[in-house]
């Protein structure tokens, strides 16, 4: 230690100068409930079960997401599509029950990646807290996106440019 360090004051005054400088600086705080901080486009928040352009559910209940889930939070029950339900479900199989236990879920995004039917995506929305544990079992009512085209959830930013380009030019095999 030099003499100046030994007598405390230069360092203390220096420190006080720094903190004083911050006194009048613009505050970094984002006043959360009123102002929302910008989320990244690929933020992994609440899930959504997408519908296709015609408003049919894309999920085919293959179960890959449930297998891929490290938290074992996804449960589904598959059923065969009956004639006359083509306007509801895109594939021949669909999930009658699709539940995600949001308390178990760790939002790792593995389900989104595992899905071969671009049915499940994570969104920028956050999952709200609740008073009861039971309310965290999100069923299809909470997960499936609204069929109203105006209230669709845009997930195009989560997809790679390659996928987007592909979608523009080609028809999906399963979109027939």
């Amino acid at each position, binding site marked *: 230690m030099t003499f100046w360090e030994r007598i405390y004051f230069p360092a203390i005054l220096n420190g006080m100068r720094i903190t004083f400088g911050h006194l009048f600086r613009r505050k970094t705080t984002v006043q959360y409930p009123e102002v929302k901080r910008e989320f990244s486009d690929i933020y992994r928040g609440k899930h959504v079960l997408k519908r296709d352009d015609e408003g049919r559910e894309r999920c085919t209940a293959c*179960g890959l997401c*449930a*297998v891929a889930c490290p938290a*074992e939070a*996804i*449960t*589904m*029950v598959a059923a065969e599509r009956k004639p006359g339900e083509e306007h509801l479900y895109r594939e021949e199989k669909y999930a009658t029950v699709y539940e995600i*236990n949001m308390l*178990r879920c760790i939002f790792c995004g593995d389900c989104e990646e595992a899905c071969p039917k671009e049915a499940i995506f994570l969104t920028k929305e956050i999952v709200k807290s609740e008073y009861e544990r039971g309310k965290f079992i999100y069923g299809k009512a909470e997960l499936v996106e609204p069929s109203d085209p105006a209230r669709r959830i845009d997930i195009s930013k989560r997809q790679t440019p390659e996928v987007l380009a592909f979608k523009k030019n080609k028809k999906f095999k399963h979109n027939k």
Partner: protein
Amino acid sequence: MENSFIIDKLYKAFDQDILKMDTSSDVLSFIIASPVVHDVISFLKNDENMNFNFLTDLCGIHYPDRGLPLGVVYHLHNLTENKRIRIKTFVTMNEPKVSTVTDLFSSANWMERETFDFYGIIFEGHPNLKRILNVEYMDFFPLRKEYPLEDPTREDKDDRYFGR
């Protein structure tokens, strides 16, 4: 330091007790008979040509199908020449006893306790061999293959849908 040099020296010193040697893996590894494992590690640490002075890792392993199911794996590191070596030793289920290396490496203390905690391998001469991570009153060794992973009290899961 060449592999062959280590192999020569080790075989010269412990010819009978080296059960297996593996040079194909990323790290030169030996399987040593359990009674001499302390001597081997002591030799590796203290011999001036070997000088493996750093115990990188120590952990247990359990092969339920083998004759000697419980194993201890040591990873040693010669920091001056940057050479790693892996020593393994296996013991029976009934008498899982290996002599401790805490006298050589202080770091082995907790790692051996952890191995005891997980696999029930008893390190003879360890100063304080008791459970470290789990609760004291636990009556099984959880990482042995026969014990399940899951907490049996969990209620909000239905196993039928996961295909595990």
